[in-house]
Each structure stands twice: as structure tokens, then as C-alpha cells.
């Protein structure tokens, strides 16, 4: 089962490697991991997409909580939540493809943020599935480069991760 874990951790050198080291040393999966400081500069927020049985996820959560740099851990995917990922795609845009790429970007509510005579950079935000289907809908031969931020997650409504 896929899970999205959100962590608050001390914004200290080495905190990231404690978390990633835990996953590699105990053989847990990481599908994506993203981290950045929060409004409180002393803390970072990390989102980890992982998968495993209920027992494995329980162990992951317990092991994360054991790390001294980890302030709080929640599984945002266990209730109503929102996930978003940002993707930048550089595509070839010449001839007929130029118009087609613009149309595809519009359909997926992407934005073209860089234009040259031969290429576009398209910015797209959404769930992992939406980004995957956008890539699936493009002619693979025209994709020059893609970069994705990894998933960010947040609970809906009253579910707040804060200390």
C-alpha cells in the first residue's frame, strides 16, 4: 500500500541523511522524498511517499519518531488529504508539434513558461497520476527533459501538522 508520510524535523545539517539513511539501512522503500524549511526557520517539513504492508508502515513511523531530529510524524494519506507535485517538461516545439504542445498544455492546465524557436518548457502541477498521464499523452519522441519535485501532501480541513 502506498502511504504519504509528513514529517517535521529540526532544520539541522544531517537531519535529511538520518531519515534517508534509516530507509536504506532498514530496507524501506522511498518513492519520493521532498523537503524544505517551513515558516518556522528552525524546522523543515518533509514529505515521503513510501509503500509497504501495515506492519512495515507502523515500523517506519516508529523508527522515524525515534530519530532525535524528528519532531513529529503523521501519515497524511490515512485520511482526507491533498497531494500535489510540480513538473517542468521541456519539449521540442517545431512545425505542427508547436501548436499541438500548446493545446496539450492547455488541456492539462499547464503553463508554458519558456519559449524558444524550437522548444517550450511546460509547468504542470497536480497529483502524481495527472503528471504521469500528461507525460503519457505527449509524443515521447518530443520530450527533451523532465524534472519533478516529488509529492507534497497536506491534510484537509482541521488536520494540521504543527507542534
Amino acid at each position, binding site marked *: 500500500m502506498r502511504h504519504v508520510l509528513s514529517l517535521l524535523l529540526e532544520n539541522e545539517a*544531517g537531519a535529511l541523511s*538520518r531519515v534517508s539513511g534509516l530507509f536504506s539501512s532498514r530496507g524501506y522503500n522511498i518513492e519520493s522524498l521532498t523537503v524544505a524549511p517551513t515558516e518556522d526557520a528552525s524546522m523543515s517539513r518533509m514529505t515521503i511517499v513510501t509503500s509497504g504492508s501495515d506492519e512495515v508502515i507502523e515500523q517506519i513511523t516508529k523508527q522515524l519518531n525515534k530519530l532525535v531530529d524528528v*519532531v513529529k510524524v503523521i501519515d497524511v494519506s490515512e485520511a482526507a488529504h491533498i497531494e500535489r507535485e510540480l513538473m517542468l517538461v521541456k519539449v521540442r516545439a517545431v512545425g505542427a508539434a508547436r501548436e499541438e504542445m500548446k493545446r496539450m498544455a492547455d488541456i492539462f492546465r499547464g503553463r508554458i513558461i519558456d519559449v524558444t524557436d524550437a522548444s517550450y518548457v511546460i509547468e504542470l502541477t497536480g497529483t502524481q497520476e495527472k503528471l504521469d498521464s500528461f507525460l503519457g499523452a505527449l509524443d515521447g519522441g518530443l520530450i527533451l527533459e523532465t524534472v519533478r519535485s516529488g509529492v507534497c501532501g497536506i491534510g484537509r480541513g482541521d488536520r494540521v501538522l504543527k507542534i
Partner: protein
Amino acid sequence: MVLTGAEIVVRCLQEEKVEYLFGYPGGSVLFIYDELFKQDKVRHVLVRHEQAAVHAADGYARTTGKVGVALVTSGPGATNAVTGIATAYMDSIPLVIISGQVPTAAIGLDAFQEVDTVGITRPCVKHNFLVRDARDIAATLKKAFLIASTGRPGPVLVDIPKDVTAQRCEFAYPETVNLRSYNPVTRGHSGQIRKAVQLLLEARRPMIYSGGGVVLSNAAEKLTKLARLLNFPCTNTLMGLGGFPASDRQFVGMLGMHGSYEANMGMHYCDVLLAVGARFDDRVIGNTEHFTQEPRKIIHIDIDPSSISKRVRVDVPIVGDVGDVLDDMIAYLEAGSERPDAECLAAWWRQVDEWRSRDSLGYKNSNEIIKPQFVVQKLWEITGGDAFITTDVGQHQMWSAQYYKFDKPRRWVTSGGLGTMGFGLPAAMGVQLAHPGSPVACITGEGSIQMCIQELSTCKQYRLPIKIISLNNRYLGMVRQWQEIFHGNRYSESYMDSLPDFAKLAEAYGHVGLQITKPGDVEGALREAFKRKDDLVFLDFRIDQTENVYPMIQGGKGLNEMILSSEDL
């Protein structure tokens, strides 16, 4: 008061009332050593290899309950310390290790004696720090001692670059430190405790399984009280020996791969299992699938939530300090008059005693050749069961666990989790320093002792009258045993040729050495050794080369599938 970083380090150790600092100097820690020279509150013990510094601090910590402290230099000093740190981590021993680091400006430039110590030790410490500013030293060391000694204890490493030890800044040792992300639970959940007590009262075939957590939280007396209130059989893990008096009728011996028949059968067939400060390790319950086939309710008390339901799903988890939780359980029991069904218990005890009557630790003694079990039994007799015993790893470790009956906690010092050969002698140094005048024996083998034999020199320098009981069978015995049983008697690299004359080697270091080859001389040699109160005596017992450790559970087998002797193979 303005002090240098090095002065601050030493002042912090004094504030923490550190008696002994085990270490080895080097370039990056020169300023700290200079400050150590100028004071006499913290006594430095100069080992001969950094691994031994950490093991010695570990032995000190295990037998006193205090934090053990070691000091090593950067690069090879730190990497040599890693085995010791990992040993302490696996057995949850509170240590603070201070390592020197190259100057801040040189970090990352492949400087002389530079390694990423924080990176290398990260997976085998409870926590570690790199201090980049002298103003952070005091608070960091305060945190290090707090983290090492609270919750589930463990080693904490503090890496200090050389320039930081030379910086000057204001010093005040903080009374408290704020760690918002570190709040170990101590009190158990009262609802869960009540549920657990109810389950214990309803048990028909109960078993208490206790581990190192009971020793670490100083809860042996509480466990004993609870066990006696309930009249339940009790088994200890390797790490838990001494947590329940071995001479007590309710004690069924150690369990696990080389545990007693009655302990393992009881563990397998019980209907309610009370696990206290133990972690269902692979050497304890063997095959988890086999273990969980037999239905039983499990109550698990542990301070570390991640130890609960890690290998075996439990029914009543209780996160908390073992001692506090046992107190609460005893209080609930004493407040009520309900007790477990006496008839059921009597029937269960008859079953346990029937298993016990198999005498799974029985062995055939000999008049011709020294049996290792006999040596350990005699050692136990002569020391009145009250010596501090350290071991290395292998057959001798199992024989020590089986035949030295510990009635008190913190007498038994062994590397259980990591299984570190070379642990015994340096650990014994820490133990002897912590308990001057008390008998300390290191039971070892000719393989293990050679992994840290250089420490005979340290023992001489500090006049440590340790008794080294070497069960010398000229084989890496446990490897040989597995090769005999599982690899068709192909003794691949397990025979040791060209061994030194250990008695003479001990003499070369300035100690007393004796070689014993006849069973009739065993007792006399042991008595002679303990009579020499001021000398380290190295007893080289030439034992039966073919002796194996029994009983035994083969890998992948269940607790009820024990081999009691070679005839069962």
C-alpha cells in the same frame, strides 16, 4: 568565565561527574589532552587500541548503570572506535564518545586523518553531533549525556574539530537542555496495564520472558516480586541474565538457540506470555512463523515503541519504563485479592518440571580431558556466584551463560546483539576500575582473546587484577561446531595454528600465566588465581577440542524442536 573549547570539554566531563575517561590521544584531540593533564578529577585510562576504549567504557556502564565515556582522535581513532560503538548500540548501553575532528576549515578537503565520523557512525549511534562552535560544546555535551542515559539508552557521539577546542568563549554548564523532539515515555498507559494484569490473572500456562531492559532499568527486584506474587515461571534472554535470580525455583534458565529445554518449551506452549524489556530477537524465538503458529496472548513492556510488534505481533503493548510499569502491575495485583487459578498453575508447573527433568544442560564430565562446562561450573562455585563476568563471543560465551548462575543483575557483561569478539578483556578493564577489589573474570577463547590481547599492557599499567579464563580448544569453536553440523565436517579456516604460549605471553606483559591441561588441576588453578588479589592471572585451559554447545535450536527451526545432544542429530 572565558575558557577554551578544550577546557570546556573537560569541565563538562567534571560537571557530569565522569570518573574514568577511556581514550587514546592524537593530533585532533591534543588540546583536550592538554587540559586533561592539568586536572585530576577525570581520570584518563590509556588503552592500546580505540576499540578497547569504547569496550572499557561499555563494561563500566553495564556494571554501574552510569554513562561510560571514551575519547578518541579523528580518522583512524574514530574508525577503530566504531566496533565498540556498534556493540553498545546493539545492547542499548549508555555511552558518550568524544572524537576529535580536523579543523573546521579542512573538513571536506581530504585532510590528514579526516573521515566523516558523524556519517560513518550515524547508523550505529542513538544520536551524534558535529560541534562547529565552541559556544555549542557545553549544551551539546549536556544533550549527549541526557540522550545516552534516558529512554532506551545508547551511545551518543560528539565530534569536535580541533580549531573549536582552541576557540575561547564564555562557559556555563547548562542545568537543563531543551529537546523538543526527544521526549521518551516512562509511565505506561494505565488502561493497558490493567488489561495486562487481567490477562495474567486468567493465564493457565503463563510464562515471563525478560531481557536486557530489566537490567538497564534496574528493575530486577520488581520483576522478581511480580513473578513471586504470581508464581509464574521466568526465563531470561542472554542480555537479561541476572534480571531474575538464577537459583530461584521459578527460574527455568536462559531461552533461545542455546537455552534450556524447559525455557524454550515453556515459551512455545504458554498461553500468556509476559515479555519484559526483551525484543523477540532471532536468536531467541528462531523462526517467527513457527513461533506464531501456536496460539498465545502476548503482553509486551518496552520503553522503545519500535521494539513492540517488530518481529512478533503482540496483544497488549505497553510502552514505558520497565520498572515503572512493573510497579504499577504489582500495585494493581496487591490492591486486589484475585490470583491466578492455583490448580491450573500447579498442572503447568508439573509440565515445566517434567521438561526440566530432561536436564538439558547435563554433560558427560571426564577425568582425562577438561570439559569447558566443568571449568565454568567450578568458577561459579569458587566465586560464590558473585563475580563480575565478562565474555567474548562463541562457544565459551554460551557455556558461561548456561553454567554461571547469576543471582544479581549487572554482574554479566557480554556482547549479545553485535556478538563482538575482542569485547571481553577491555570490558573487564572498565568493570574492574568501576569495582576495585571485586573479583572480575573474563571468560574467553583463544580466538577471541587475540582480538584485543594488546590490552594486557593496559591491565599492567593500571594494575587491574582481572582473571582471564581462556577455554582454549585450538578451534574457532562455534564456527567449527556449525561446520561439523551443517557443513559436513569441512573445517574451513576454523583451526588455529601457531598459537602463542598464552601463559608465557601473559608473563611477557608482566602478569601471571598458567596452563592447565588436567581436569584435576582446574579447581586448584582457579583458587590460586583468585588468591592472587593483586595480579592479573591468565589461565589457559586446554579443553576438549570436540565439545559442542548443547542444547541447540538449528536455524529456521522452532522453539519446540531442540537438539539436546549430538545423539539427536
